[in-house]
């Protein structure tokens, strides 16, 4: 056989070997609205906000090294957008005591509910970036028969979730998160669930920070009346989700949230007090004094989240996401004017 024949044969074999099967139950992965509508119900809506329930669930988070963190948590929702998360018993940690943990958990209650749990935050983006595989299996979770799904990233950083979804309520009653290397990063499992909870004595979550939403359709700089940074190079698959001004103490930050359908990514920068005009005067608050210094950031890995924090072109910046440090650096650099 001639040389070209050998190469052709190798290419044909490799093409066959690399061909991936179509996920069961989902013959194709179309994009756009049609794709979102053809996906299971848990993709189209956040059942936690629509189904009143109360339950105890076990959460476990793996550390990069050493013991991780595990605790029980009570979740209560009224099906109308109100929710409450309370730490329960069973804290397993070598780095924090129970009292401090409960205090921090209470402070971050809203953030945990909005961004920590597995939720499809943008169905269209989800349909583009993720692949849903129906395992065709059922599992009993908290006394309810759940269907098993595998949700894996089809583009970009490889990661995956194993989900157990109650087909009646579409609540995700168990989830396991795996990183690109296949290591278990986090898990959540309902130990009990009550679909007719007594809500009379529940203290619903109240936002502890002042967050003002912005309209992404209009220039952010005009809305905040100050110079703003906006990343132009996002990690693969991510799209803008929200924009808001967040005030934390005496500082104000422009908070831009991006999403790949499931995982959020945050970019915040201090609002430049020097160029801030009427916004600062109207609100009557001191808004971010930003030192002018060379661009430098501190990088830190917290569990599966990568964090960059520092100064870029005179702005205090923070970038946090479950992406690589290089991707976050690209994002920061692309925000420079």
């Amino acid at each position, binding site marked *: 056989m001639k*040389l070209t024949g*050998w*190469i052709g044969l*190798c*290419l044909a074999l*490799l093409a066959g070997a*690399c061909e991936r099967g179509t996920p069961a139950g989902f013959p194709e992965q179309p994009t756009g609205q049609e794709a979102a509508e053809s996906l299971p119900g848990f993709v189209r809506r956040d059942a936690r906000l629509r189904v009143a329930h109360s339950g105890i669930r076990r*959460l476990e*988070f793996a*550390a*990069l*090294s*050493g013991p991780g*963190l595990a605790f029980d948590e009570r979740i209560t929702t009224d099906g109308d957008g109100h929710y409450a998360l309370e730490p329960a018993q069973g804290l397993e*940690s070598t*780095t*924090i005591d129970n009292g*401090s*943990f409960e205090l*921090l*958990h209470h*402070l*971050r209650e809203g*953030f*945990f509910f909005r*961004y*920590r749990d597995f939720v499809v935050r943008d169905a269209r983006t989800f349909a583009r970036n993720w692949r849903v595989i129906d395992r065709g299996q059922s599992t009993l979770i908290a006394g309810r028969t759940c269907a098993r799904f595998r949700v894996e990233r089809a583009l970009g950083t490889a990661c995956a979730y194993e989900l157990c979804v109650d087909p009646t309520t579409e609540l995700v009653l168990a989830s396991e998160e795996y990183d690109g290397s296949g290591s278990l990063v*986090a898990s959540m499992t309902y130990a009990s669930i009550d679909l007719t909870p007594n809500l009379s004595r529940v203290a619903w979550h109240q936002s502890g920070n002042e967050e003002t939403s912005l309209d992404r359709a209009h220039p952010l700089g005009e809305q905040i009346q100050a110079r703003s940074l906006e990343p132009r190079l996002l990690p693969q698959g991510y799209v803008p989700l929200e924009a808001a001004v967040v005030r*934390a103490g005496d500082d104000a*930050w422009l908070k831009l949230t991006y999403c790949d359908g499931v995982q*959020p990514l*945050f970019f*915040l920068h201090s609002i430049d007090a020097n160029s801030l005009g009427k916004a600062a005067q109207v609100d009557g608050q001191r808004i971010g004094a930003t030192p002018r210094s060379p*661009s*430098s*950031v*501190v*990088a*830190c*890995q*917290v*569990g*599966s*989240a990568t*964090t*960059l*924090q*520092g100064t870029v072109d005179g702005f*205090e910046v*923070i970038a*946090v*996401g*479950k992406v690589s*440090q*290089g991707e976050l*650096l*690209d994002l*920061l*650099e692309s925000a*420079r004017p």
Partner: protein
Amino acid sequence: MEQRVAQELDGDRSRRLYRVLGSLVRQAAPPGLDERVAGHFSEAPRVGDEERGRQQAEVLRALDVQPAPPVLERLLNEELELPLRHRAERFPGSLGRLAAPPELEARLNATARRRNMRRLLLAPALTLAAAGLVVWLVARQPTPEPRAHRITVVQASSLRELDPLARALAEGLSGFAGSSGEAR
């Protein structure tokens, strides 16, 4: 040789005519010629040279006229129609054949050996290398070239180096709360 070629190129057809005539079948002299010649020469002392020449001419005129063979006309016509072709055919044929030097045979044998080695060893080796390259290109994970960033990056040795807001975001996203030893 060069002289002959020059003559031919100048249009001298004499060589061609010599060759054609030389290729003709020689005709034997008629039997009566010898008797007449002998009789003539027996009387030769009595006549002068002029007379002898005249007599000889008469004798020759008395001989049978032998016409040129038809092939001669055909060969001449062919040569006149394609003179260059016939010239090229004729001259190499007249060159002396030289024996190939022994070095040529040795070099040919070496070349043949190298070609066989290439076919038996090099081609499969190249095929395997190409297949390996294809496998490597297809199987390897895409590793984008690290970009040179203009932002200085300092790796934190502890979460405490982070701003409280950044730390809260990172811990909240990863599910940790109050952790202090997960930085790398």
